[in-house]
């Protein structure tokens, strides 16, 4: 994490929402955003870039019990140069809730369902969320999210 990289000029519209930017090897730009504005950020993506100029590659959640947060990363690939942008946000671990973006980008469905099932991040407004999307039912019945660090599975 050396010097903070500058945003590509095409993504200038994001600058009101950026908390900070830094880079991840190999040349991915991480943009930290408050969880309230994630929905807004993707609305802007759709408005300014428009389809088919970007797609959501994946949503990755990571659990940090020490800091009592769950980090959610949205990996967005901007076409045609295929630059990977990471929209990073932090949620409280006790009540991880974030607005769903499937109304803007339906391609986020797979990632949101997976993150909910494995990590327990609730995406508000996504009516397809369900447990046992992947996880076997006996784990679900115990109310365990397997990718949380304190879960014993």
């Amino acid at each position: 994490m050396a010097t903070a990289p500058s945003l590509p000029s095409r993504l200038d519209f994001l600058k009101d929402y950026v908390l900070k930017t830094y880079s991840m090897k190999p040349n991915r730009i991480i943009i930290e955003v408050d969880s309230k504005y994630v929905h807004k950020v993707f609305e802007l993506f759709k408005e300014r870039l428009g389809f088919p100029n970007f797609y959501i590659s994946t949503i990755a959640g990571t659990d940090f019990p020490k800091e009592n947060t769950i980090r959610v990363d949205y990996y967005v690939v901007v076409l045609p140069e295929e630059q990977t942008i990471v929209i990073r946000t932090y949620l409280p671990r006790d009540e991880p809730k974030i607005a769903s973006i499937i109304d803007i980008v339906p391609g986020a469905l797979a990632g949101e369902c997976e993150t909910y099932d494995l990590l327990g991040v609730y995406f508000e407004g996504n009516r397809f969320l369900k447990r046992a999307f992947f996880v076997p039912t006996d784990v679900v019945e115990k109310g365990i999210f397997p990718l949380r660090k304190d879960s014993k599975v």
Partner: protein
Amino acid sequence: MTVTKIVEIPLVLEIPIGPQHPALHEPLLLKVYADGEEVVRVDINTGYNHRGVEKLCEKNTFYRDIFIAGRVCGICNTVHANCFVRALERILDLEPSPRAKYLRVLAMELERIHSHMLINAVMAEILGFDTLFMLIMRDREMVMKAKEILTGNRVLADYMIVSGVRRDIDETKRDRLLSILDKVEKRIKYYRKLFEEDATINLRLRDVGVIKDVDASRYALVGPPARGSGIKIDARASDKYDAYDEIPFNVIVRKEGDSWARMMVRWDEALESVSMSRYVLEHLPRDSNAVPDERRLPRRFPPGETFTRAEAPRGELTYYVLSDGKPKPYRVKIRTPSFNNIINGGFAYIGYTIADLPAILVSYDPCISCMERAIVIDLRNNKKMYVSLKDLVVGGRK
């Protein structure tokens, strides 16, 4: 006797599409709602193949994870291992030797050829073209032999290791690989022509499952489904990992967006892969050692995070690895191409007939199987049937 309870059920028609079938891979349940012949809604049930790989990776050490990553998917195993190994190399700040980079590309391109041949063979079988299936499978054995010569196993190569590959090739092996490539190229050209001209294939695949470019990016489709719709996504061309910056190749893009275009993209890519493999074999750097001594590899992993992309036969594969300095990774996030293509791709079935459904599913190159467990529920023109619970129970016992 009074009827106490009424259960409202639609007229349910359960038809397993396709027989039980070794050609398709992981189990998946597609719930298809059909109005007459027309598909109106598709629900996708997953989880039959969830093995908890991400948790397993957190429980094992980095080096053991290389082999677990290869076993996420058997067909694209070298790409999985390569993507993970490159992530580790970014964390360790290591660079493999040029010869190792070329050999990695060779292994991945051979895999792409066999994967594309396999899925085209499966498509031929789905269309009822069994002879073509058998012929393609016969010729695919040559590619498997090439993989065996290169990596030491037919399917699971276990070829990648941090800062290199696990075995090298000599001159005799190189010549054998080249002669296999010549034979394979001839056959692939023949099959490509066949897919282009054959009347049955054209009738079954043209204008079936059309995906517009806007939809492809909205639903985050990757790989041949995206490239068949005119969206140029190829991690090989953009990320230029390993030796892809030195090897000339074209990214195949087609505009049609139908099932046929997706299959043609695969044939063209297979031809492209053949020429890339030949380029690798002819321009293999001789000056450096490709095989590192696995006993002397670094044991300590510094903290750091990285996100690597690779172009698997089915599309963009991504690995996110977070290390906190311990011998085990803190988080490994794997996103396979089929995960996006299958779960998000349900929209493409809508409006086509039930008979087109297998063709569309296979044209996605599913890393999932079990058409045999796709259930068709017929909501024929809103016709409702009321049955008392008692009748239902009696009916079930008969």
